[in-house]
């Protein structure tokens, strides 16, 4: 039985993280999961800048989730300035983030998680035998990319969305093109569900509660209250129930909900809002191993696969409803105001908050990423899970621990931001 395990570079996740684990007599005596990314300073960078710059600047937090940061920042700024967006703007924003959700889930499932379940070191090693599956992943990634490029005018860091609307609207033919591209990957998403439902997942239950936005009208995406069976909270008062704190060993903040650990992400959304999945999504859920209120974090991968089915259906529905009309962005007053944007993104709930003064300048910003919210739960899950595999060889324990971490689909690049700067 190994006494200490140090993973200086946890592989096949977004960004860089480290784990220090010490054991004695089968018990874990130390478990420290930390982000080792450099501090990002984004909340400081946007201070003093104009409100209409926040979304473009914060989109650089991550190349994987750049659309998510754009839309969360826009929602927060519009909340602060009382801007009401049109239905068309809302639907196009949903569609843009659906593209990103599809690209992100397909990439994580096939390139980072699948090698674990098939016993390969990497997707490259898997390619000769599982070419069909990887081609299917590439098709889904391509479709997701295509949506982002058409709507956002770029593959990464979209530039078309702005405060109050869109700087460049897509043409109706492009919306039809998106619908067709989604139609083409429908079967791929269903097969992804079947594949991820066929694996044997370790039996393990987390003690953290699963939280997501809850929207009585639909499966949560761009709005809702934050909740679970542990309670429902108004997003504007998020700082009353969510607290960030810093541990000296990590460059990412830890986040607690009323002093307790919690989890966000695909499984949280399925747990809180599974009944709002599309018919196809519900069918996929029924066929999966996920039962009501699953507490097994490994099931998050299955939940992501189910969401792929749902997102493709939702995207097609939006395309069918959209009849693009020429619209100028709604004008915003300069300020003052404070606003909170909370949206569901591939890895969970993303929070952006801005205070804006009467000159339209940002005076305060706060961003809480899904991975920061999951960090404590991941760490404590590892602490509680490891004793069940403590009798195995060190290499096997490492694989099991990495698998557990990867099931959360963490993005450590986005979560690293704890450093506080004193402003003169």
């Amino acid at each position, binding site marked *: 039985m190994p006494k200490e395990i140090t993973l200086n570079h946890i*592989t*096949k996740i977004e960004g860089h993280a480290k784990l220090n684990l010490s054991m004695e007599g089968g018990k874990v005596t130390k478990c420290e999961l930390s982000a080792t990314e450099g501090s990002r300073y984004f909340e400081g960078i946007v201070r003093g800048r104009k409100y209409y710059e926040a979304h473009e600047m914060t989109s650089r937090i991550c*190349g994987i989730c750049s659309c998510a940061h754009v839309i969360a920042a826009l929602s927060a700024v519009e909340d602060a300035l009382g801007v009401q967006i049109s239905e068309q703007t809302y639907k196009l924003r949903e569609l843009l983030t659906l593209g990103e959700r599809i690209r992100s889930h397909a990439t994580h499932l096939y390139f980072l998680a699948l090698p674990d379940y098939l016993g390969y070191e990497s*997707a490259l090693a898997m390619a000769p035998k599982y*070419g069909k599956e*990887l081609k299917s992943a*590439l098709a889904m990634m391509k479709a997701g*990319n295509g949506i982002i490029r058409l709507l956002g005018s770029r593959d990464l860091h979209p530039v078309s969305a702005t405060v109050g609307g869109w700087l460049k609207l897509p043409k109706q033919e492009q919306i039809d093109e998106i619908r067709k591209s989604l139609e083409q990957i429908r079967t791929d998403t269903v097969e992804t569900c079947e594949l991820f439902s066929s694996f044997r997942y370790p039996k393990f239950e987390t003690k953290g509660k699963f939280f997501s936005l809850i929207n009585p009208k639909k499966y949560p995406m761009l709005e809702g209250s934050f909740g679970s069976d542990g309670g429902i909270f108004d997003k504007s008062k998020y700082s009353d129930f969510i607290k960030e704190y810093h541990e000296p060993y990590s460059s990412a903040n830890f986040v607690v909900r009323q002093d307790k650990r919690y989890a966000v992400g695909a499984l949280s959304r399925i747990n809180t809002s599974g009944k709002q999945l599309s018919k196809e999504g519900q069918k996929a859920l029924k066929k999966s191993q996920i039962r009501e209120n699953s507490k097994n974090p490994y099931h998050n991968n299955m939940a992501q696969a189910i969401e792929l089915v749902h997102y493709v259906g939702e995207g097609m529905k939006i395309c069918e409803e959209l009849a693009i009309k020429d619209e100028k962005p709604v004008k915003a007053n300069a300020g003052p105001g404070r606003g909170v944007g909370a949206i569901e993104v591939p890895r969970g709930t993303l929070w952006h908050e801005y205070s804006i003064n009467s000159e339209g300048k940002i005076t305060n910003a706060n961003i809480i990423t899904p991975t920061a919210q999951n960090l404590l739960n991941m760490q404590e899950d590892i602490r509680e899970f490891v004793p069940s595999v403590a009798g195995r060889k060190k290499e096997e324990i490492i694989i099991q621990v990495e698998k557990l971490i990867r099931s959360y689909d963490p993005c450590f690049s986005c979560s690293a931001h704890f450093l506080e700067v004193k402003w003169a």
Partner: protein
Amino acid sequence: MKKLYVFGNEHLAEDRLARQVSRLLSGRHEIVHCRSPDELLECEDEEILILDVVRGIKEPVIIEDIEKVRAKKIMTLHDFDLGYFLNLMKLLGVERKVKIIGIPAEGNVEELAKKVEEWA
């Protein structure tokens, strides 16, 4: 018009030359500035033509054997780079000829552009 996929980052001194060179080309190609290698999936040309900076060379080179391009172990999705992607395409049997015009990280932009023009 045939596409020329140009990789690199204008903000990094050691990775900006391919983009600078692409601006001096005569216009025989449609220049696509790639932010992510999976943009190559969109390529419908018979041959994928790529311009990129290659580490450790002093003169421009043509690489047509993808196996010569090192595929890094994928640690994070940020490592999903050109080498990884081209190797993946080959393993998946994506039947496509690939020609990479590799240029050094440093050099005379105009001279390099002439060479690229000749080879592209």
